[in-house]
C-alpha cells in the first residue's frame, strides 16, 4: 500500500502562478478570438441589407447586461460581507466558507423554485377557472383543494383518458428511453474508446443530435415518419415491408416518438460515458489480460463497476429529464392520436393551457412532482446508486 504523492508536482502546482492548462491556452486563442469578432462586426456593419442590428444597439445591450451583472455582483457582495461578518467573525464557524460559497447559488435557486411551487399549491386549493380568472375573482378553500386533487386521480385528466393510463405510459416511456440511451451511449463510447482513424469525425457527427436545437430536430424527425414521404416508410417499402401509419395509430406513434427521443438522447450519454471510460487506468486491463480474462469478463469486472460513478448520476438525471420530456412528444405526436401518446407532462400542459382547468392543473403538477420524487427516493435508497456521489 503505497501512496504515491509526487510532492514535487504538488508544490510546483501550488506555487507556480502560471498553470499550463488554462490561461496560456486562452492567451494563445485570444488574438484569434478577437479576429473572429472583428470579422463578424465588419460583416454586420457593412452587410448592405441588414438594418436592425446597429452598433448602437450592440453597445447599449452589452452595457445594459454589464450593468446588470455588476449590480448582481454588488448584491451578492453585500450578502457575502454580511455572512462573513456573522459566520466568521462572530460565530467563527468552521463551515463558514462553505456557506459563503453556496450562498449565491442557494439564493438564486430558492427564488426561482420556491415561489412558483408555493404559487401552484395555492392555485391547487382554489376554484380558478376561465370564469374566475383574474386575481380577486377566485378564492381559496380546503374544499376546492380536495376536489382538485381527487379529480386528478378519479376523473379524466385529458378528455377521455384517466390518470393511471397516462401514468403507466409515462413509466414505460421513461424506462425504454433511458435503457436505450445508456446502452446506445455505452456501445458507441466503447467503440470510440480506442485508437481509430477518423475518430474525431465520428465523434463530431455523432454529437450532432444533441447540438441541433430540439425543436428543429423534432420537426425533421416527424417528417421522416410521414406516411407518404418519410424516409422510414420508404425504407420499409424498400425491404419489402408494408407502410406503417406512424402518426395515425397509437402504438406506432408511441414507437415513433420513442425512436426520436432515443435519437436525441444517445449523444449526451455517449459523451459522458466516453469521458468516464478514459479515467479507468490501463493497469487494470493489463493485469486482467495477464490473468487471461476475456473481453466480456473485463467489461463486467473492470469497466462497468468503474463507470458507475459516471453512469449512475447521469442515469438518474436522464430518468428525471425523460420523465418530464415535454418537447419531443408535443412536437412529434402532440399526444395523439386520440391522446394515446400523452405522458404526464404533456397532459399537464393541455390541462392548463388548452382546457383552462387551472385548479386541477396545479394539483396535477404537484402530483407529478411527488410521484417523481418518491420513486426517485426509493430507487436511490434501494440501489445505493448515489453513494459514490454523496460520500
Amino acid at each position, binding site marked *: 500500500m503505497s501512496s504515491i504523492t509526487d510532492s514535487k508536482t504538488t508544490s510546483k502546482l501550488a506555487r507556480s502562478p502560471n*498553470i499550463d492548462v488554462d490561461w496560456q491556452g486562452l492567451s494563445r486563442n485570444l488574438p484569434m478570438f478577437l479576429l473572429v469578432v472583428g470579422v463578424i462586426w465588419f460583416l454586420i456593419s457593412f452587410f448592405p441589407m441588414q438594418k436592425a442590428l446597429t452598433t448602437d444597439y450592440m453597445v447599449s445591450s452589452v452595457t445594459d447586461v454589464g450593468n446588470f451583472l455588476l449590480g448582481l455582483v454588488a448584491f451578492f457582495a453585500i450578502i457575502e460581507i454580511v455572512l462573513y461578518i456573522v459566520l466568521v467573525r462572530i460565530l467563527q464557524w468552521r463551515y463558514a466558507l462553505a456557506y459563503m460559497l453556496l450562498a449565491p447559488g442557494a439564493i438564486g435557486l430558492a427564488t426561482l423554485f420556491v415561489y412558483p411551487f408555493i404559487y401552484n399549491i395555492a392555485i391547487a386549493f382554489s376554484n380558478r377557472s376561465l370564469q374566475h380568472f383574474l386575481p380577486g375573482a377566485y378564492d381559496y378553500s380546503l374544499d376546492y383543494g380536495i376536489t382538485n386533487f381527487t379529480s386528478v386521480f378519479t376523473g379524466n385528466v385529458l378528455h377521455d383518458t384517466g390518470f393511471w393510463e397516462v401514468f403507466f405510459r409515462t413509466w414505460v416511456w421513461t424506462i425504454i428511453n433511458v435503457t436505450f440511451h445508456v446502452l446506445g451511449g455505452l456501445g458507441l463510447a466503447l467503440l470510440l474508446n480506442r485508437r481509430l482513424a477518423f475518430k474525431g469525425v465520428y465523434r463530431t*457527427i*455523432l454529437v450532432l443530435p444533441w447540438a*441541433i436545437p430540439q425543436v428543429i430536430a423534432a420537426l425533421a424527425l416527424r*417528417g421522416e415518419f410521414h406516411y407518404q414521404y418519410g424516409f422510414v416508410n420508404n425504407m420499409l417499402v424498400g425491404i419489402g415491408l408494408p407502410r406503417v401509419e406512424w402518426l395515425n395509430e397509437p402504438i406506432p406513434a408511441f414507437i415513433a416518438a420513442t425512436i426520436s427521443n432515443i435519437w436525441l438522447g444517445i449523444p449526451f450519454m455517449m459523451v459522458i460515458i*466516453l469521458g468516464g471510460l478514459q479515467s*479507468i487506468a490501463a493497469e487494470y486491463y493489463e493485469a486482467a489480460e495477464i490473468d487471461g480474462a476475456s473481453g466480456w469478463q473485463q467489461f463486467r469486472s473492470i469497466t462497468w463497476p468503474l463507470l458507475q460513478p459516471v453512469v449512475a448520476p447521469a442515469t438518474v438525471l436522464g430518468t428525471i429529464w425523460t420523465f418530464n420530456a415535454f418537447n419531443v412528444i408535443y412536437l412529434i405526436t402532440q399526444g395523439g392520436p386520440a391522446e394515446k401518446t400523452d405522458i404526464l407532462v404533456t397532459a399537464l400542459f393541455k390541462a392548463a393551457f388548452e382546457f383552462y382547468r387551472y385548479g386541477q392543473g396545479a394539483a396535477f403538477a404537484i402530483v407529478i412532482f411527488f410521484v417523481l420524487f418518491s420513486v426517485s427516493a426509493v430507487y436511490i435508497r434501494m440501489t445505493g446508486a448515489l453513494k459514490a456521489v454523496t460520500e
Partner: protein
Amino acid sequence: MSTQIKPRSSTLTQGLVRRTHGDSLLKRLIIHGILIFSCIIALYPVIRVFSVSLRPGDRLLTTSLDLIPADASWANYQRLLSSTDFFLWVWNSLLITITTSIAGVILAATAAYAFSRWKFPGRVPGLMLLLTTQMVPATMMLIPIYLMFVEIGRATGLPLVGSYLGLIVAYMMGGVAFSIWILKGYYDTIPIDLEEAAKIDGTTDLGAFYRIILPLSTPALAIVFLFNFTTAWVEYPLARIILPRSEVFTWALGIRSLQAQFNTEWGTFAAASVLVAIPTMALFLWSSKWLISGLTIGSVKG
C-alpha cells in the same frame, strides 16, 4: 492499491493504451461499419432540414427523396438574412446565452467546491434538493416566474421583464443543479492532498480553489459551459413570455414569427434552423479536446 496522481495529459493515454494492440483488421472494419451506420442515422434528419432550406416555395414535404432538390437555390437564406431581423435575434441570443453560461459556470463551480470539500450540515439533503429541482414540471413554473419578475421589476425598477435581464437570471439558475452535480463529482476525483500541500505552503482555501482545482477541472467546466449554452440557446417558452418586443427577440422567437397560423414559411424557417445550429456545433468542436480527453468523473478508488 495506489492512488495515482499524474498530470492530466496522460489520462488520455490511460484508456487508450489498452486498446491499441489486438484489434484485428476484421474487428476494425466492423467497428468502422457500425460507426458509419450510426453517423448516417445521426446525420440524415439534419440533412433533410438542410434540403428544405434549399427548396424554394416553402414546401416542407415533397414526393421526391432527393437530398439536394432539383430547383435548389439560396433564396431562402437571402430572404432570411436580408429581410428579417435575423442578425439582431442571433445577437440577442448570443448575448443572453454567453452571459448565462459564464455566470452559471462561476456560480456552480464555487457551490460545487463547497459540496465537495466540506461535510457541512445539510450537505446530503442539499444535494438531493438539487435533484428535486429537476423534477418540477417546467410548465408549472412559467407563469409564477413571470409574475414574480414583474413584481420585482415594479418594486425595484429593474427591467427584469421587458428586457432580457430576467431571462438571464432564470437561465442561470435553471442550469445550476446539473452543473453542481457534474462539477462536484469531478472535484471529488482530485485528491485533497494537493490542496493540503498548498495550504501548508501558505495558500488560503480560496487560493487553492483558484490555483489548483479550477485549472485541473477544465474538462468538467467545459461540459458545464456547453450544457448551459445549449439549454439557453434553444429555450423558447420562457423567452416568449418574458421578451415582449421584437427588438429583444431571441432567434427562437424570431423564427417563430415566420410561422403564420397555417402558412409557415418553411424554407426560411429551415434556413434559420441550419444557421443557428452552427454556433453550437462550433462550440462543440472547439471544446471537444477538453470534453473528451480526461473527463474523469470517477475515482480510482483505493
